[in-house]
């Protein structure tokens, strides 16, 4: 395909996509020109397919056939972001936002709304999009979306994720055309450098500088790699980009290939993401067919192709040297740096490695210029950041906001606050390498430097909200179990340090902690930070150190008073039956695996705390909330 053909195809598809981007009044005028009276977008991302969005699509197809509807387009998209309410379905040009869809709901919507002259089924809309007076609010105006700015996720939930033509219609590959025909490789690098874009994978290294080092490095061939080994539990923005707009990553990698002088790229993706892997492979095939990957791209003389490699469940492979070892077919163990990957990376050749979200920011910078990008965000953190917000929060999902947006905005305005009227206690960022942000810092602007200053880090953008029921000793232990499990074992400080830290935390959680343990934790942490081989070990103590700093009183309560204030640590709790609530139904006694509950039918039961193994089965089975732990 030539540049002219690309532009022509983009123009042909643009109106179809635009109906989904503009306000209702304009969209309604534009819709007739697209050949489709309405468009139904259904999320086909992991979150929504897990709650059966594909069956919703099947039902729509079936209903359309029965009702003779042939002028409504069904589009299977990537993630809309509001995963808590999945499966989500949006109907354009109205912008009607249906949530928690079932096949039955889909049938109703087809019969009442999608038929000619149909009307929006208000009962099935996401409640926040309906005013008290019954009028419908465009979903872009509701709190969850209003505060967001979508750059990396610009096409996620907008285009059909498996269609290259829709991707082109939404603007994909136009930045590649521009780079190849209107810019020099050095010009591309300069643009990225001036934009101030920093790597979104965790470390925040300036992307343009990385590219420049690789361009200047000696050695052929050079490689471009994409880190899609999103290992931080609770982070899923990379997966959503790959599922929703895989072409934006391919395009950006080709741009980098042109800039640094590479002809081959590798994407290392988690095998736990089957939909993302499938869409990536599909996208690569399509791009080859359209001449956007392979030989002589768009007739420019530039060759570039991409291979996909699957991870196999090793967190350490998110570290760049380990990732490259894994692509080469070895154990994913990191190696000391220098030499850095820009000089000696994949197959010992100069390599540029960026994370998925970083790649997703490249095309907009090339198209809109560095001025535009650097006008977003804070002084040293430019652009936007995607956060995967999870845990004890209403609107679990993906959120993209300008750097510097406060945690309060994310948790309360966008996230809708904490469920069940509980109090916000802390938010954990940076996963097993990061730390917690306590309530007193809730007005902090979220950017790279501010988070480091308070003992956490941006990481890849996982943001787990915790309420008063979360024990900060237990959560630190949880992260250390993770890092101890995932430590590759190559270097001693990490292999033994994670184990010793975990043992010490285990001891504290089981009520055997001693005052000296706190000093011991700090001491081990110091050694791990200064002498571990890679970031996994260097940052593994962060969760416990930051929890001790911000929630020191919980640690002392566990050690001195042998109490778990949040009521989580089993050894420090006992289970009791409240006599006035117990009806003597015997359900708890019948389900107790330890036979620790006694009592006759219709009389108050009792738990023998010596026999009780604190498994919680009784609480799960009690229908009268008569069992408490304290």
């Amino acid at each position, binding site marked *: 395909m030539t540049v002219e053909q690309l532009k022509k195809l983009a123009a042909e598809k643009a109106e179809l996509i635009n109906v989904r981007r503009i306000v209702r009044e304009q969209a309604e005028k534009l819709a007739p020109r697209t050949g489709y009276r309405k468009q139904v977008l259904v999320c086909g991302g992991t979150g929504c397919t897990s709650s059966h969005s594909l069956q919703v699509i099947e039902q729509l197809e079936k209903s359309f056939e029965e009702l003779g509807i042939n002028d409504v387009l069904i589009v299977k998209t990537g993630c809309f972001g509001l*995963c808590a309410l999945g499966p989500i379905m949006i109907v354009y040009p109205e912008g009607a936002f249906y949530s928690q869809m079932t096949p039955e709901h889909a049938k109703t919507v087809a019969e009442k709304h999608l038929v000619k002259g149909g009307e929006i089924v208000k009962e099935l809309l996401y409640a926040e999009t309906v005013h008290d007076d019954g009028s419908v609010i465009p979903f872009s105006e509701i709190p969850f979306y209003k505060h967001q700015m979508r750059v990396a996720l610009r096409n996620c939930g907008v285009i059909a994720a498996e269609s290259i033509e829709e991707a082109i219609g939404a603007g994909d590959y136009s930045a590649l055309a521009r780079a190849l025909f209107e810019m020099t490789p050095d010009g591309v690098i300069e643009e990225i450098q001036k934009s101030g874009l920093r790597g979104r994978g965790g470390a925040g290294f300036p992307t343009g500088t990385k590219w420049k080092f690789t361009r200047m490095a000696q050695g052929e061939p050079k490689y471009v790699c994409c880190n899609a080994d999103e290992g931080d539990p609770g982070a*899923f923005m990379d997966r959503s980009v790959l599922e929703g707009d895989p072409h934006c990553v391919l395009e950006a990698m080709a741009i980098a290939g042109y800039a640094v002088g590479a002809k081959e790229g590798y994407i290392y993706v988690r095998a*736990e993401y089957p939909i993302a892997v499938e869409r990536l492979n599909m996208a690569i095939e399509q791009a080859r067919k359209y001449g956007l990957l392979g030989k002589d791209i768009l007739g420019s003389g530039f060759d570039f192709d991409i291979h996909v490699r699957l991870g*196999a469940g090793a*967190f350490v492979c998110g570290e760049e040297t380990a990732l490259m070892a894994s692509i080469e077919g070895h154990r994913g163990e990191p190696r000391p740096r220098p030499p850095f990957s820009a000089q000696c990376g994949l197959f010992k050749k100069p390599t540029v490695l960026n994370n998925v979200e970083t790649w997703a920011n490249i095309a907009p910078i090339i198209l809109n210029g560095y001025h535009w990008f650097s006008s977003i965000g804070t002084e040293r953190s430019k652009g936007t950041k995607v956060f995967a917000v999870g845990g004890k929060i209403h609107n679990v999902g993906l959120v993209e906001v300008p750097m510097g947006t406060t945690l309060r905005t994310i948790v309360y305005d966008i996230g809708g606050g904490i469920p069940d009227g509980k109090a916000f206690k802390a938010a954990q960022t940076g996963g097993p390498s990061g730390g917690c942000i306590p309530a007193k810092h809730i007005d902090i602007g979220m950017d790279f430097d501010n988070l480091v200053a308070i003992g956490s880090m941006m990481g890849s953008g996982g943001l787990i909200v915790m309420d008063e029921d979360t024990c900060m000793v237990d959560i630190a232990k*949880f992260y250390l179990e993770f890092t101890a499990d995932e430590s590759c074992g190559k270097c001693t400080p990490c292999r033994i340090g994670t184990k010793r830290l975990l043992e010490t935390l285990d001891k504290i959680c089981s009520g055997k902690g001693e005052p000296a343990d706190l000093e011991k934790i700090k001491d081990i942490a110091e050694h791990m930070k200064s002498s571990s081989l890679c970031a996994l070990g260097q940052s593994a103590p962060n969760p416990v150190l930051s929890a001790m700093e911000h929630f020191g009183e919980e640690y002392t309560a566990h050690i001195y008073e042998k109490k778990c204030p949040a009521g989580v640590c089993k050894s420090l709790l006992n289970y009791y039956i409240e006599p006035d609530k117990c009806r003597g139904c015997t359900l708890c006694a019948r389900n107790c695996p330890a036979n620790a509950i006694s009592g006759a039918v219709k009389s108050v039961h009792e738990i023998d705390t010596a026999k009780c193994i604190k*498994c919680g*089965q009784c609480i799960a089975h009690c229908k009268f909330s008569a069992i408490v732990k304290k």
Partner: protein
Amino acid sequence: MSQNPFEGTKEQMAELLACIEANRGEKGALMPVLHEAQNIYGYLPAEVQTIIAEELNIPLAEVYGVATFYSQFSLTPKGKHKVSICLGTACYVKGSDKILEAVEHELRVRCGECTPDKKFSIESCRCVGACGLAPVMIVDGEVYGRLTPRDVKGILDKYMQD
């Protein structure tokens, strides 16, 4: 390496050899071949590792080293139904440890083990990315979300029959 008698069929062997052929000469072929081999056999028996080592001309020690390094590769057979409980952070703060306990209680084996009748194996995983449905468990690829320990029995019962 593995204690279980190897029971590979001719068809499986042909499939394995075809996969090795397709990857021969590729840079870093070992990982894709191991993935495919595990898909074919359900695990990576010593016999299969030996064939891969010989065919790809990689020392067996290295094949074994790679197969044991990654948690997704298994040297022992899995149960007919694979039950996987997400212990990622978002699921954990919503009580996925209680879900795991309920599964262990129900099947009477521990995480990482297989029931004596080879019907179920339990494993934990770190985030499947369905955080909106936390806590989740996955049985043979089917995701069950927003669980309470009480839901576990009913879900497993569906798989008990076959």
